[in-house]
């Protein structure tokens, strides 16, 4: 598969006609996929295709008969490129290597908003599937017309259409020969039936993998251009702190090889020819800058209490029946509070952006998860027309949500605007990443429930306190870090997407009376979306309480959950999990815990079990095993689904046991891997993932499903091993257990 790169001198249209690419276009009218409930795929058109209906936005048949698929999604380590190639090759009867996948680039690929784990597969893959299937139909019709026969007298393979029983063949390129393939999609588009699949559902190695083991240039951090120079940004000590003065003269004498200092309000950046010179210049600039102190961060406070003290905007998520019974003081109500701290994405590669301002156009290479919304925000910040900002998506290291990608690219863009004609590479320092990335919000949860005489849950009441869960650029400069610091600053919008805070706050169980409330606060730290958003904390609370209730009802925790489940697929993953762990025996001080959730209550089903040992004296927790049973609907790439799920289990275990952003009054204190430790090999348990495939259903996305239940599975296991209930994360402190 060939990598493509952009040629700024050619517009998209020119590009296509110059190079003999063939464009297929059509418009379409369809029913709303998004609103339709899950059913056989042939009946609806995918949402992304509806929003971006032109086929030429998705597919180009190239002169040599290969097909280029254009998607607005980024590779985030989920293997999207391979999965998309599988789907397209399947429907077009091509070999996998006859598909080229071009990822995220403004004015070149469809505007697909953001690449978030759970959305990538569903919309994009389905859109590509329909587009490819429709292109196949059209190509067959064209050949049939050419030979004056019917489509069903033809076969297609490897980019060649052949006539049954005759020696006649036409390659795609010959067939199209400069012509335009036009048409509108008429539903139903005939899709391949799952029984005939050659690629979909198979474990296909990712095409980018050999590049990875050879470490060929894949990442924005590795981009090199003629004349490129290196920049570093010099940030204030903490949010809200302002640059009071900068002794440029004294600084310049200490950094003689400096190419440029860019100052705009509190935004300060330094540029040098060598990367290390830029690093040294940054160090020296810090010594010559005076900053104002800022509103102190709530150091030393009990955050679990503190976040509930904010004036909160409250909203009712769900109310059904009555919940007054919970207030009876008869000992039948179980009630508990839970807390999850601020946690970081902590990408292993510090964020990086490359930018070049040339002939009135700003080119920006970024690992942003949403090139169009980022482009719009950046253009507004710089006062440029959107068309004058060209953003090319280049992979970075894994991001797991909205990390510093857009911000580093913004920093690079600001420097590039001050140095027209020179490509600027600006990489964040490790401490920039740790201290300035937008974190996953701290959250507080309060859950209470009551059992009836048969041991079933009769009443449930739940409240969650959370900051917003997405402050992605969204076309608003106020979501770009550097924009806060400019001389003419763009204020940070008050509350991002709050829906993430109550994601999965409603238990996916059959409970007659329930009430769910969500309270939105604006906390002291910068926040945005982190993998699975609020689902992680909500499921931690819900599934912990489920465990307490099962115990009160004297039931096996799995049976208790099954007794409250009506969805067959939920029951299937739980039973599967039960089978997976049925032969596990607990030694002394060992325990197995489990948890279940259906991600967002509409996506993938996942049940997770954890086995831990808790040291009696030290209270140290050792994870011995993790198991997950997953139903993500139709599986496109089995390897990819298993791999991502294992990654979820390990990462969520790291969050649960170890991770917490720390701060003093005037700084974030967790600025490296020593102060913010993550899981190391010595702590990694054995892991097993089983996927239940449903080729007949739509794919649901697997990127985040295991994240949420893992925390509860772990604390439930710790309870079984030690008798201690952990309700505040991270588990970290041995004292809490020991």
């Amino acid at each position, binding site marked *: 598969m060939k990598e*493509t*790169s*952009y040629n*700024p*001198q*050619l517009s998209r249209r020119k590009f296509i006609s110059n*190079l*003999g*690419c063939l464009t297929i276009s059509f418009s379409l009218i369809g029913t709303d996929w998004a609103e339709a409930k899950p059913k056989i795929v042939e009946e609806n058109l995918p949402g992304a295709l509806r929003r971006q209906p032109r086929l030429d936005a998705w597919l180009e048949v*190239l*002169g040599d008969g290969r097909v280029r698929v254009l998607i607005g999604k980024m590779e985030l*380590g*989920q293997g999207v490129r391979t999965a998309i190639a599988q789907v397209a090759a399947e429907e077009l009867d091509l070999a996998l290597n006859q598909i080229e996948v071009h990822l995220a680039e403004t004015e070149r690929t469809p505007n697909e908003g953001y690449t978030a784990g759970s959305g990538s597969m569903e919309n994009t893959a389905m859109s590509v599937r329909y587009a490819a299937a429709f292109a196949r139909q059209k190509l067959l019709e064209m050949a049939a017309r050419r030979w004056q026969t019917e489509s069903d007298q033809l076969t297609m393979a490897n980019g060649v259409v052949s006539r049954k029983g005759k020696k006649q063949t036409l390659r795609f390129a010959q067939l199209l020969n400069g012509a335009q393939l036009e048409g509108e999609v008429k539903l139903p588009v005939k899709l391949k039936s799952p029984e005939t699949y050659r690629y979909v559902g198979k474990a296909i*190695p*990712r095409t980018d*993998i050999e590049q990875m*083991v*050879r*470490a*060929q*240039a894949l*990442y924005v951090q*590795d*981009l*090199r251009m*003629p*004349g*490129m120079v*290196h920049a570093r940004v010099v940030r204030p000590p903490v949010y809200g702190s302002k640059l009071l003065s900068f002794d440029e003269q004294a600084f310049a004498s200490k950094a003689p*090889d400096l190419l440029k200092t860019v100052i705009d309000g509190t935004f300060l950046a330094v540029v040098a020819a*060598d*990367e*290390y010179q830029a*690093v040294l210049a940054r160090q020296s600039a810090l010594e010559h800058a005076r900053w104002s102190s800022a509103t102190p961060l709530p150091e030393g406070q009990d955050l679990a209490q503190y976040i509930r003290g904010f004036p909160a905007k409250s909203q009712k998520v769900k109310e059904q029946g009555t919940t007054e019974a919970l207030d009876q003081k008869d000992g039948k109500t179980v009630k508990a509070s839970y807390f999850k701290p601020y946690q970081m994405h902590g*990408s*292993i*590669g510090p964020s990086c952006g490359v930018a070049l301002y040339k002939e009135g156009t700003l080119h920006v290479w970024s690992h942003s998860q949403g090139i169009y919304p980022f482009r719009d925000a950046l253009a507004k910040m710089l006062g440029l027309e959107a068309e004058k900002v060209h953003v090319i998506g*280049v992979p*970075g*290291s*894994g991001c*797991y949500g909205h990390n510093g990608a857009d911000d580093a690219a913004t920093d690079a863009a600001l420097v590039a605007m001050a140095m027209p004609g020179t490509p600027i590479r600006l*990489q964040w320092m*490790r401490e920039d990443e740790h201290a300035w990335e937008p974190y996953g919000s701290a959250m507080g949860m309060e859950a209470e429930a009551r059992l009836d005489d048969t041991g079933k849950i009769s009443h449930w009441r739940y409240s969650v306190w959370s900051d917003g869960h997405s402050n992605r650029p969204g076309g608003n400069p106020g979501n770009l870090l550097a924009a806060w610091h400019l001389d003419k600053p763009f204020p940070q919008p008050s509350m991002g997407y709050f829906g993430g805070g109550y994601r999965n706050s409603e238990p996916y169980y059959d409970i007659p009376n329930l009430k769910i409330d969500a309270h939105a606060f604006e906390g002291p730290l910068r926040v945005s979306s982190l993998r699975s958003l609020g689902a992680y904390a909500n499921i931690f609370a819900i599934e912990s309480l489920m465990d307490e209730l099962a115990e009160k009802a004297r039931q096996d925790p799995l049976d208790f959950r099954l007794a409250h489940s009506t969805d067959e697929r939920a029951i299937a993953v739980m039973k599967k999990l039960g089978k997976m762990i049925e032969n596990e025996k607990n030694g002394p001080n060992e325990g197995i815990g489990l948890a279940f959730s259906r991600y967002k209550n509409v996506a993938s089903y996942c049940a997770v079990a954890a086995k831990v040992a808790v040291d009696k004296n030290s209270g140290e927790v050792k994870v011995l095993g993790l198991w997950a049973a997953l139903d993500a609907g139709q599986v496109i790439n089995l*390897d990819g689904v*298993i*791999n*991502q799920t*294992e*990654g979820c*289990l*390990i990462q969520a275990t790291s969050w649960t046991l170890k991770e917490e952003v720390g701060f003093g009054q005037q700084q974030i204190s967790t600025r*490296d*891997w020593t102060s913010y430790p993550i*899981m*190391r*090999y*010595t702590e*990694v348990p054995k*892991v097993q993932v089983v996927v239940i495939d449903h080729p007949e259903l739509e794919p649901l996305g697997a990127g985040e499903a295991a994240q949420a239940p893992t925390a509860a599975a772990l604390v439930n296991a710790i309870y079984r091993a030690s008798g201690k209930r952990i309700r505040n994360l991270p588990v970290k402190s041995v004292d809490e257990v020991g």
Partner: protein
Amino acid sequence: MSFCVYTFNPAAMLTENAPILPKTERSFDTKSITLTVNGKPRELNVMPWVSLLDALREYIGLTGTKKGCDHGQCGACTVLCDGKRILSCLTLATMKEGAEITTIEGIAPSDTDLHPLQKAFIENDAFQCGYCTPGQICSAIGMLQEGKAHSREEVKELMSGNLCRCGANVYIIDAIMEGIK
């Protein structure tokens, strides 16, 4: 047939003959050193404080070795120096005069063949984003040469300086265990 006229082709910039990045006149004294990198002698003029990591990435254009923390905390920058694994971010280039450095780019025997550990990484699907991978592979090769790792637990212990945020750890260990067999 070629479809794209690349104005900026990062891959092309990364061949062994890639032009060294533009260097301005420097007011600092540079030191001339010779390293053997992936079997080729390289003469470099570097400032005394330039790390081996920056020398590889910025002076020689070998960006396979990754910068993760620049503080010896993550292992992303691991390379082999005279057969031993070292953190290139903590190593000054000038201290390695005459040394034999092997980076991820020099591990495969040829363009068409891979090192057994590279193959094992592919077979075991031992990555997600792949950013930590060069460091993991170099570290694992160094570890295997040390000959101290026999069991899975020992491998975990000896690899614990390499972080993977994507959580690909289990498959990475699987891949390395294949290397031990």
